[in-house]
């Protein structure tokens, strides 16, 4: 609060229209984006970077426009897989954190399994996936889930444990059961932490969905990447990467917005 009325803000000249524009939340990333694209285009042209290595933004744009239908329909598939994996990871991640905080012994027993689930490359155990789950959307969502739930668990655990001893005393003085301590104290305290975990989770869910599509699928942006890569359609490949990045940003900021809506008391 005092920050917004900080002295610097007062001492400077009144904000002109341009300055106000520069302060708008979307302005900085936009400038950054435009700048990056410009630098990229110039570099590719000036340094004569070969097409098969890195196409110029203009080439990517053309490819994107030409293949819009393809990109769009595949993006929707990836989006759906990502959201399913993300939702699963949010629910399971928080539940696991709750279980591990409520029963530390269970937590200690589970942790190695969770860490293992992270460090074992999904690609290495693809045959298991293929034979047991099959290929396609389910596998992708599942891999998205596996890649996304860990940050939720770790951050939610930190959040659930972030309560002060005083607050715990307060709850216990009211005769709160362990469940009530969770519901009325630990969970609300953990919310900002869980949101942070979810921000990480959404990014990793996308990666997971893509990896899942690598492993075996006939649609989705990951499938498109593999195919265009194999066929050296480098411009379409980069167009798919651009769509993927846009989707990532949208989802990431969506989760951030969700966080702001949920945490109103700050």
């Amino acid at each position, binding site marked *: 609060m005092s920050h917004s009325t900080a002295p610097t803000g007062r001492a400077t000249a009144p904000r002109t229209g341009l300055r106000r524009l520069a302060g708008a939340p979307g302005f900085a990333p936009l400038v950054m984006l435009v700048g990056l694209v410009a630098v990229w285009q110039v570099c590719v042209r000036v340094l004569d970077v070969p097409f098969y290595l890195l196409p110029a933004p203009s080439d990517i744009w053309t490819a994107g426009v030409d293949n819009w239908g393809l990109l769009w329909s595949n993006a929707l598939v990836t989006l759906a897989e990502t959201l399913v994996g993300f939702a699963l990871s949010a629910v399971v991640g928080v539940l696991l954190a709750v279980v591990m905080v409520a029963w530390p012994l269970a937590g200690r027993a589970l942790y190695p399994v969770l860490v293992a689930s992270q460090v074992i490359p999904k690609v290495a155990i693809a045959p298991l996936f293929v034979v047991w789950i099959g290929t396609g959307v389910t596998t992708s969502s599942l891999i998205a889930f596996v890649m996304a739930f860990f940050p939720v668990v770790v951050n939610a655990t930190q959040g659930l444990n972030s309560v002060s001893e005083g*607050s715990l005393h307060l709850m216990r*003085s009211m*005769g709160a059961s362990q469940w*009530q301590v969770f519901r009325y104290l630990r969970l609300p305290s953990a*919310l900002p932490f869980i949101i942070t975990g979810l921000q990480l989770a959404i990014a990793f869910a996308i990666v997971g969905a893509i990896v899942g599509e690598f492993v075996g699928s006939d649609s989705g942006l990951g499938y498109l990447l593999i195919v265009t890569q194999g066929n050296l359609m480098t411009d379409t490949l980069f167009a798919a990467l651009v769509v993927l990045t846009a989707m990532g940003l949208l989802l990431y900021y969506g989760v951030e917005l969700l966080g702001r809506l949920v945490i109103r008391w700050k």
Partner: protein
Amino acid sequence: MAAPGQAAAPASGRAARIGISGVERVYASTRSSVTALHDLTTEVPGGQFLSLLGPSGCGKSTLLRLIAGLEHPTSGTIEVGGTTVTAPHPDLGMVFQEDLLMPWRTVIDNILLQADVRRADRKAMRDRARELLAQVGLEACENKYPRELSGGMRQRVGICRAILHDPRLLLMDEPFAALDAMTRDQMAVDLADMAAQRDTTVVFVTHSISEAVFLSDRILVMSPRPGRVVADITVDLPRPRGLHVRETPRFADYVGQVTEVFEDLGILRDRRPAGHHEGTQR
């Protein structure tokens, strides 16, 4: 709610008796250990209003936490209502030294936390919470968040929360410390009222000697390092007491009595050998 202490608690409406015998509380860390309380023994009959007085750091808050069952004595036992305390008494209300409001709950919801945890009827309790808020002068703040309140306002919300459910055992740790003299007086009168009407055992920590005399049936004065009782004074003033009682000679007597104990304790450090503060030697 399924705490071990609950089943054995007396079901009658009588306030709980507190028995403290040979209680020692040592805070041990790897680097040092502090004996916060040493061999404390006393008994608080049900319905008594007991004040704890003593210099900062003498173990008042510690004793309150022990009676509440939030911490356990290193040795000795504490009984409430005839049962050894292992968990908070089911009918406890507690005001902590810090306000401990939940930043995500509005003022009224912070008070209703007590109702939520105790699975009481939220609607009826909401009316009572509003009543209490009005009583402490915060009727306009019902829907504010804690960060929008001043220190004294937060403290008053904490008091409302502690008494929402008409507890039979009320532990209060300097509940009026952040309040001005007038508000403080009024709340003291209300509290004395409430305690008398509802047959509640109250253990009250304060730094105001006259407040202690005004409110209490009995005053324990404690000394620090390690905390022990150095005076046990029964205040035999008629009840109900109005604020005018503070002008009576008997009241002044009690205040003087407690002040004397304090002075005998010595103050927090050696006086400077000789200074221009003639007054400090008195």
